[in-house]
Structure formats: structure tokens, C-alpha cells
């Protein structure tokens, strides 16, 4: 399970400089979309997390408020984008963080910092539909260019009819 100890070097950084409050036991801490490029830069330049690992976006549909629970407001449709960087070498470590944006909003792209984010962000845009702001070349990567919809969204049925192949 991904867990970042708030007392660790990474946890301290996230807590003190990037306002991460919640360090869940089974997930990476959330960072605001505005600050996360800065976080990646600090991690790469000051802490040696220089290998780009992955971007994994996931789509979360609307959760209606549970009437039985007091004060439950439900959850709007949103994307959750998990990022990871690795520090190479004998003291290797992985820095995980998550960014959450509502549908319709975009996330700042990491491409200016990491060339490896280019295709990963294109893939997530293609498959999940997250728009990465500042990406120099945000095209579909896996699916045909004229494909409709984003297959990895939860509302995209697995048996959606495929248009005739060119």
C-alpha cells in the first residue's frame, strides 16, 4: 500500500511546504493542482527524485449524498491523478502524490519538467479524458484520433460498439 509517513523527509516536505494535511494509510497524500508542478520541481531538484515513474488518472463518477448519514454531501464527478517520481541509486525511494480536480478543470502539465510525462499525460488524456494544461502536444496516444469517448472512464461501458476500423 502506498503510504507516506508524515514524519519522513518527504512527508515533512509535503506537510510544511505544500500543505498536505491528510496522510492516508492506503494512498498518497493529496496536493492542490496549483502547487503540484512546484512540488515536482522541488522533488527533482532538491531531493534527487529525478526518474519519472508514472501518471495514473482515474475517473470517479458522482456519488449521491447518503441520506442515512448525517452531513454526507456526496462527491461530485472528479478525476484523481496519481503521480510518482523515483530517486535512483542505492538509497532509492518513490515519491507518490495525488492531485484531485473536478471534471471540466485541467491539471498543470509536468512536461516542461519531465520529458517522460509527455506520453504518459497523452495516454491519460486519451484513456481517461483529463486535460493537462500546458502540454505542448496533447493528442490521443493509444486510440485512433477520431475515437469518441475516453475508454477508461467509469461511465464508458466495456461493450461500447467500436466504429468500423479504417
Amino acid at each position, binding site marked *: *500500500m*502506498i503510504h507516506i509517513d508524515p514524519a519522513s523527509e518527504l512527508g515533512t516536505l509535503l506537510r510544511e511546504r505544500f500543505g498536505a494535511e491528510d496522510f492516508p494509510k*492506503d*494512498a*498518497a497524500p493529496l496536493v492542490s493542482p496549483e502547487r503540484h508542478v512546484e512540488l515536482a520541481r522541488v522533488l527533482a531538484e532538491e531531493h534527487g527524485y*529525478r*526518474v*519519472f*515513474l*508514472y501518471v*495514473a488518472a*482515474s475517473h*470517479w*463518477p458522482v*456519488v449521491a449524498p447518503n441520506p442515512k448519514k448525517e452531513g454526507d454531501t456526496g462527491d461530485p464527478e472528479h478525476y*484523481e491523478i*496519481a503521480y*510518482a517520481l*523515483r530517486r*535512483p*541509486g*542505492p*538509497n*532509492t525511494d*518513490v515519491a*507518490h502524490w495525488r492531485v484531485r480536480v473536478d471534471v471540466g478543470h485541467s491539471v498543470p502539465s509536468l512536461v516542461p*519538467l*519531465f*520529458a*517522460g510525462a*509527455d*506520453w*504518459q499525460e497523452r*495516454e491519460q488524456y486519451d*484513456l481517461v479524458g483529463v486535460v493537462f494544461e500546458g502540454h*505542448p*502536444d496533447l493528442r*490521443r*496516444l*493509444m*486510440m*485512433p484520433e477520431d475515437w469518441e469517448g475516453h*475508454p*477508461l472512464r*467509469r461511465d*464508458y461501458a*466495456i461493450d461500447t460498439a467500436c466504429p468500423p476500423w479504417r
Partner: protein
Amino acid sequence: MSVELTAQRRADPYLDLEDYDPEADLMVLNVGPQHPSTHGVFRMKLYLDGEVIVKAVPYVGYLHRGVEKLCEKLTYTQVTPIVDKNDYVSPMMNEQAINMAFEDLLGVEVPRRARWLRTVLAELQRIASHLLWLGTFTLDLGGAIGGGSTLFLYCFRERELVLDIFEELTGCRFHYNTHTIGGNRHDITPGWAKMVHEAISVIEARTHEYEAMVTRNGIYADRTRGIGVIDAGLAMELGLTGPALRGSGVDHDLRRDAPYHAYDEVEVRVQTEAAGDCMARALVRIREMRESVRIVREMVDGVPEGPICGHRPIKLATQTKIKAGQAYACLESPRGELGTFVIAGGGSGTACPYRLKIRPPSLHALAAVPYIMPGHMVSDAVAILGSLDPILGEADR
């Protein structure tokens, strides 16, 4: 030579051809998706000035099968045989990577015997995968009717020995489905260790022959030295891992630095080369092959007694239930860091993953193409692509 000078500079992948030379009459050469040396169905559009590449635009996705979407619909127990097909040159690694993630989520302890067995299988798979790489790389350099195919067939001949070992153990030569959550599905048979010893001693002896034909050959060196140079900074930024990263001089190997399986019980000597060119990547892989032979030889006799599976064996499709959580598990596949990022729970119930993301090392390797190819010739494009060792099944998923 001007070709070499331009290759050293980091190329701009988004180069506007107007900026290059508005007057230039560039030739657009479409290499792939059906081309002998694109290692599957990779396509790149090369803008050529004479024979020198000005800009390379790669296209992937011709082998996209929607594995990640499929995994969302399959239960945890059913996913293993599906991901087998991702990196079809080292299927063991796919199985191990995905099951490591699930074990992490479940908190299952893998028995020591299974961990040793997994280590041996992983190293054997590494030998097989590097052998296939060496063969196909030389094929790219030497041609299908020529020296390339000779070495290719030598490598396949030796790779057969490894596949025979896997067949003896699992019953399949390729898509084994021998790993499961918490351990392995097949235990070793009485004659297996002897078979492994015979195979690796043959492979070790023949590695010298390969070296005589490739790395110690002047023509081969001419084709690979100084070609496709990736400096350490670019390699890390691109997320290159494995031999491509080590070939750029970064001393990083998950087997030593973040030991999984039983790698904490064995010494792994990490092989690095500083040059960052095709030859460096080739040397790293050939030395890794030797290193894997040594590790297998040390480990195969000492596989400890005990159970091979620490979790309930698969009896029902929906028997493995994970409430919630996110996990990232990674291992050093022959191509680099093969990671699995899983979000469990969520809206998909407890039996299926909510979102499963496979981090393919090949995709990152292919992403290097537009950065390193410009400035080289068409012949070098083939060499560079071969030296990155991309597996399209894994890149496209």
C-alpha cells in the same frame, strides 16, 4: 562530421519544420507499422534531409488491446493470465509485478520457497529476454539474410533451453500463469534443478561466442558506438529504467536498491556503462545476462522447503476481496521498472480493481525516440530502436 555533432545536442521533439529550413525539400519516410525492424507494430514518421533524420515522430497504439479496461472487469484472480500477454518477451515479469501489487494490497506474506522460486524464474526470464533482444538487435544491424539472422538463430537456440525449463515447470512455454496471489502455482519437479544447471552452463559458454560476433566486432562497434546517445539527465527525465538507464551511467537497479522476492538474500552486481549509446546498452545487457546466470546458479540448488503459496489457492473467481487502498509494486524487468499501480475498492466492489495502471518500461523507452533520433541516419534509426528494446505489447497494452 556534422552528423555526429548534431546528434550530441538534445533534439527538439516538437520541432517546427519551418524553423529547420523553410527551403528544405524534406522527404517523409513512414517506417512502420509494417516494417521489418520496428519490433512489432511501431510506426515512426521520419523527416529526412538526404538520409539524415531531421525529425522523428513516433506513433504507438497499434497494439492497444485495452488491458487496463479489461482488468477493471476481471477479478483479482483472473487478471494474472491476462497481463501475461503484455510484455510477451518476459511474461514471468508481468505476472510477478501484478501479483506483487495485489499481495501488497492484501498484506499476504509470500512463503520463502515461492520467493526463491520467483527469483530464479525472474532471472531465467531475464536471460531469455536479453537473448531475444541480442538476436533481434543484431538482426536489425545485420539483416535477415546475413550475419544478423545467424546470431538471431543462435540466440533463439539458447533461448529454447530456457523455455524448455519453463515448460517443464509450468506446462507452457510462454504464457505460463504460474504466479498467483501469495505465491506460485507450480512447484518444481525432481529433475528441474539439473535441467537449469545444464541450460545455464550452455548459455554461459556461448555468451563468449556472441561477444566475438557482436561487441568485439569492428563493424558492429562502428554501427553502435556514439549512436543514440542518451545522457543520464535525459534518461532519468524520460523515465527510462533498466539497461537503458544503466547504459547512461546511472547506478540504479531495483534488485539491489529495493530488493523484492529473495534478492535481499543474494548479491546483485549492478552493471553500468557511462557512454549512453547503443553499444553501452548492448554491453550492459550482455553483462546482465552473465550476472543472471551467476544468480541462477547460486540460487537454484538452495530453494528452501515449504509451501509455495501463502494465500488460499484459487478456487473461486471472486474469492480474493480487497476493500480499498492504493498500491504500487514494481520490479526490475529486463526492460526496466515494470510497475503496477492499483486502486482497489471504489465503485467496483471488492473483487475487481477500480483502476489498474501498468507502468511499462517500453513506453518510456519509445518516448526517447524523438529526442535521440534526429541527426542520425536511417540505418541508425533501426539500431537505436533496437537498442532501446521496446516490446510493443507492453507499450500499447
